[in-house]
């Protein structure tokens, strides 16, 4: 490994990052998750922690751009340079830039997340069968509204599971229209447009107006790439037009004809011969997670390595089940030292060393069943000393206390149990959680972290999805508490307000948000945990809780550690 001259590094461990814009290739929640996992690669082996900011200046400012993108090092179109980043320091130092002339995926081809429909945001399943035909891209077949859709299982006729594919007719991203879809035709600069355009911009991004007249309303958004969008060429982002003619022949799928490099391309109008409009077809693409993990290595102070299997090796290489190479770990720990906390990743079952000294008795549960017993790991944190838990909630009749990737269980007059690894029982959850609750009827468990949420049914998980999916405002930073009300409603708390979610429709009830003090007089307005336990409402602030009866009277103020049966 190499570090930068003078061992440039951050002089603090709580590093902040901010995502300035998104690529049209991936759903924002997938980009968010890829970056979060890329940071976790480094926080798993160092004392570093990474907090996402949504405004202002963060240590690591992340952005996508093309060719000349605002610094002295232009990108070079498709392939070649994928991204770059600057070593730690002020201003542009520490920032990471990704070339948006690349096709960003998770390394194995199109990642098409669906919207609406009945598949709750699941990914498209290609190929899928519909009315006797096989489809390997989204289709508008079977619909009159021209909205591209896909099945999320291999056979739509059998399962009936479907969702809508990213398209400018469904939503836009960034811009100033809160995701509203395009309005076609729209007027811009006196011209009429019936599709997305790059006119008026010098960064090559496709955009549209979200009202009929941009000149008057100035409302716009960026167009997400459809799954059939071309990459590069002279029509970046435009969907392939099938069939199209080329050199007098008709093509109904991508072809490498006419090219000596064998790359697949298509025309974006019905006649290449007439219009010469074309682009490359979607390939496996580059894993945003892997490239980001590499670039964040630079942003933390690592230079390139000459170990071919190291993450910090300069060339891109797709790896399915990624783990850091010893060389990367030595390099980053040379700068920041090891992770003093407990090992974050549960030991792999095949390499279990059941030595008497092993602090953790790792017995990984068989993934197919939801084991009833989880193995406590070496207590590194005394829960009785914790002054602020990430989450407190009742699950299967026991209070669960979550903190930094661990949880403890406690119920009245029973011995406290734990700590347990969150990742062992609920894999894919981030370390930092904000709140959770159990659906009293379905027993599904909802977890919230930042602007995302996960729904677990046993160990099956749906998510992460954006909390906007539930009808919460896009400006909400996090959900801090949850109170189940009856069998199908749950109150979700954030700041000084709360909303009511209908669990059946998965949508917010009308007439919300409401102010906490209008309904729950006498409890702190800045409670960071709100939960229901044995019919009482608990509002926590640091080590204290306020308990309220169902008649909304505060009948007790106590210490959270009492609930943990601490001595």
């Amino acid at each position, binding site marked *: 490994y190499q570090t*930068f*001259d003078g061992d440039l590094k951050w002089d603090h461990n709580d590093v902040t990052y901010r995502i300035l814009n998104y690529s049209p290739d991936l759903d924002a929640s997938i980009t968010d998750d890829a970056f979060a996992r890329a940071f976790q690669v480094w926080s798993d082996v160092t004392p570093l922690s990474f907090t996402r900011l949504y405004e202002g200046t963060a240590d690591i400012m992340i952005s996508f751009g093309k060719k000349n993108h605002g610094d002295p*090092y232009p*990108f*070079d*179109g*498709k*392939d*070649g*340079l*994928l*991204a*770059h*980043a600057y070593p730690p320091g002020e201003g542009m130092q520490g920032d990471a830039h990704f*070339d948006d002339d*690349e096709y960003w995926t998770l390394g194995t081809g199109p990642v098409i997340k669906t919207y609406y429909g009945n598949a709750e945001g699941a990914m498209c399943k290609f190929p899928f069968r519909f009315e006797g035909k096989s489809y390997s891209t989204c289709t508008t077949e079977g619909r009159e509204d021209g909205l591209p859709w896909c099945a999320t299982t291999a056979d739509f006729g059998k399962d009936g599971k479907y969702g809508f594919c990213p398209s400018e007719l469904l939503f836009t991203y960034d811009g100033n229209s809160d995701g509203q879809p395009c309005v076609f035709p729209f007027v811009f600069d006196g011209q009429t447009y019936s599709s997305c355009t790059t006119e008026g911009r010098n960064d090559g991004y496709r955009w549209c107006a979200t009202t009929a007249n941009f000149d008057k309303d100035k409302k716009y958004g960026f167009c997400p790439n459809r799954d059939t969008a071309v990459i*590069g*060429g*002279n029509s970046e982002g435009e969907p392939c037009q099938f069939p199209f003619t080329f*050199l007098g022949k008709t093509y109904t799928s991508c072809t490498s*004809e*006419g*090219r*000596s490099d064998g790359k697949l*391309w298509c025309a974006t109008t019905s006649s290449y011969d007439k219009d*010469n409009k*074309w682009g490359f077809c979607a390939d496996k693409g*580059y894993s945003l997670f892997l*490239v980001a993990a*590499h*670039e964040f290595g*630079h942003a933390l102070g690592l*230079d*390139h390595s*000459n*170990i*071919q299997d190291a993450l910090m090796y*300069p*060339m*891109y290489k797709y790896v399915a089940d990624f783990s850091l190479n010893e060389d990367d770990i030595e390099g980053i720990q040379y700068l920041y030292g090891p992770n003093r906390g407990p090992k974050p990743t549960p030991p792999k079952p095949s390499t279990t060393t059941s030595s008497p000294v092993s602090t953790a008795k790792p017995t990984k549960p068989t993934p197919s069943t939801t084991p009833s017993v989880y193995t406590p790991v070496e207590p590194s944190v005394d829960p009785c000393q914790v002054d602020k838990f990430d989450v407190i909630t009742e699950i299967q009749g026991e209070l669960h206390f979550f903190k930094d990737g661990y949880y403890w269980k406690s119920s009245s007059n029973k011995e406290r149990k734990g700590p347990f690894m969150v990742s062992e029982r609920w894999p894919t959850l981030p370390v930092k959680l904000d709140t959770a609750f159990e659906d009293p009827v379905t027993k599904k468990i909802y977890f919230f972290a930042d602007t995302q949420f996960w729904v677990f049914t046993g160990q099956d998980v749906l998510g992460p999805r954006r909390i906007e999916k539930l009808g919460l405002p896009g400006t909400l930073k996090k959900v801090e508490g949850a109170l189940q009300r009856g069998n199908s409603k749950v109150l979700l708390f954030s700041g000084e307000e709360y909303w009511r979610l209908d669990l059946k429709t998965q949508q917010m009830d009308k007439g919300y948000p409401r102010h906490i003090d209008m309904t729950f007089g006498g409890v702190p307005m800045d409670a960071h945990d709100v939960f229901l336990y044995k019919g009482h409402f608990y509002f926590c602030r640091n080590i204290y809780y306020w308990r309220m009866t169902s008649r909304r009277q505060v009948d007790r103020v106590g210490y959270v550690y009492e609930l943990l049966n601490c001595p």
Partner: protein
Amino acid sequence: WCHPVKSKFLTFPGDLIKNMTDKQLAEDYLKRFGYMQVLDKSGLQATVSTSKALKRLQNQLGLEETGKLDQPTIDAMKKPRCGVPDVRN
């Protein structure tokens, strides 16, 4: 068997054909990623010979250090990669 159709190769408008010769590609690559410049003893930047620069690149990429622009080296230069220089001056 019919005679294979001779594929007709076109130049596509807007195609970033990097129609550089391998030699031009190598010179551009060695310069961009910091292999041509070195700091000499007195800290001044000096330009090294292409052969010496190639050897440094081959060492960095774990290739056989021939100092020649051989095929494995050309192939390595065409692979997608990070834009941060390998040799910092």
